């Protein structure tokens, strides 16, 4: 396993450096979301059992034989098929999580089979008691099957739609801002659209020392600062003059 770059003690974020020299970040999925995914899968499996039983019982003895083989395959290999194909069972897909190797690559066939064979033990003594215990004791929420297979269950991030502010003005902050401070302003500008206006004003007024403003004016001023961070003054103007219209970024 690739050693983590000292994650904070209580964080569920795990990062792996890939050959391209950048770090991939994964957020671990905990017991509750995995239990929900399991419940969805259990319902789908139940439905498959019923359909199989209804459809094949019409065929007599051979149908029953095929049905039993089908039961066997669903019991042991339903998750394997989906994990190898899509990285996640339908239940996991619905919950937005998937299975990966603990080095960040997609789950391998061998690992998928191991983690799903060991499901039989995770289930013991009843309703995944051992698996839950193992997940609660392990910092990475791994059940016994995950430990043996070297797999993790993580969230599949869906980046939200980006709403940069409509504020067009550009204003240079009066003081030099550190990187962290700049990031905070950018995050405010990008996520402000999702907040109520009262909350936006409340947040913006925290920086009254910087802006010297209150109310909506403070919000607009912070947006203008963010615009300055993204565009700059002169550079941006000249660049935009040079590029054809309609080619703006997202």
């Amino acid at each position, binding site marked *: 396993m690739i050693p983590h770059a000292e994650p904070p003690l209580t964080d569920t974020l795990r990062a792996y450096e890939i050959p391209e020299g950048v770090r991939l970040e994964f957020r671990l999925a905990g017991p509750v979301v995995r239990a929900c995914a399991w419940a969805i899968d259990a319902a789908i499996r139940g439905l498959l059992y019923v359909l199989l039983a209804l459809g094949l019982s019409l065929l007599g003895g051979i149908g029953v034989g095929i049905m039993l083989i089908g039961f066997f395959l669903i019991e042991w290999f339903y998750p394997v098929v989906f994990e190898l194909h899509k990285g996640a069972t339908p239940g996991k897909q619905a919950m937005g999580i998937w299975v990966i190797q603990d080095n960040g690559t997609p789950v391998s066939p061998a690992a998928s089979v191991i983690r799903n064979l060991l499901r039989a033990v995770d289930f013991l003594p009843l309703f995944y008691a051992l698996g839950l215990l193992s997940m609660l004791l392990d910092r990475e929420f791994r059940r016994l099957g995950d430990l043996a297979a070297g797999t993790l269950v993580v969230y599949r991030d869906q980046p939200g739609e980006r709403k940069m502010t409509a504020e067009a003005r550009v204003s240079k902050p009066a003081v030099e801002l550190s990187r962290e401070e700049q990031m905070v302003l950018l995050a405010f500008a990008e996520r402000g659209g999702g907040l109520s206006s009262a909350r936006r004003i409340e947040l913006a007024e925290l920086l009254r020392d910087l802006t010297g403003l209150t109310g909506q004016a403070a919000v607009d001023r912070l947006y203008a600062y963010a615009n300055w961070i993204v565009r700059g003054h002169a550079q941006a103007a000249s660049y935009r003059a040079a590029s054809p219209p309609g080619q703006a970024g*997202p």
Partner: protein
Amino acid sequence: MRQEQFEQEHAELWQALEEQLADLEQPRFKRIQKRMGGPEFPSRYRRVCTHYSLALSRAYSPALQERLHSLVLRGHPHLYRQQTAWRWRILHFVLLGFPRALRRHSSYFWVSLAVFLLPALLVGVGCYQDRDLIYSILDEQTVASMETMYDPANRQPGRAPERSSETDFVMFGYYIMNNIGIGFRAFAGGILLGVGTLFLLLFNGVVLGGVAGHLTRLGYQDTFWPFVSGHGAFELTAIVICGAAGLMLGHALLAPGQRTRLMALKQQAAAALQLVMGAALMLLLAAFIEAFWSSSSLPIGAKYSVAALLWLLVVLYLGWMGRSNRGSH
């Protein structure tokens, strides 16, 4: 460089990679690009990786970082997916890989065999001599149903002759579900420090030994032994192999040696999986033999000679298949 300029310069590339990924993430038959996405994919992906690092180091806005991170995250599995010739690998595994893997871990096999066979022999002999011992292993109903099943007076145990081929198929399905399931559980139980595996081996050994001893004592040997001897070659051997795989897990946890317990467990599990998969194939074959051959009413001589042949086959396959000329494997 300011973020806005950076975005305008590279928006086209990001868009292209995004579209390519959306295509690659579809099921194979819907894809435009059947293979990995041509020579542009790796270079596009690597350039976006660079852009992501730049976005981080230049403190561009969180949303842009997030967008580039998501592109890298989505591209990574497509570039580093394991693409293997699985048909060839299965053939290679069946012919060479499985027997070699078993011989590499033969000590586990012998331990597993002992745990299974010694109690079976002990209880078998006990039940052969003592008529009541079987009732301390199985309840009366089970014993009674076993007795009727193998009673020589009952020529076709448990079924009407005209439906025999259909019943055979039902039993085929049942043996697959039941026996391979036992094999898988014997493996999985190994993660409980080997205790689950030991219990399953012991339990199955005691029950099988007891039933065999009891039925022989009743004089049903001519129905019982010809029935079990054929598929037993594959079935019993495979269960012992699954037990060996489970013991490998237990051993890794109890005595990891120089490795951490977790690392030992992961390595042993990967090695043990080969044994389990090979054993599952053997159990599949055993289910076929049991359903369609063992239940047939051929003369005892034919049954025994085929059984002897099957045992010889198993021993030769597991013991000698895939040995190189130098005998190093």
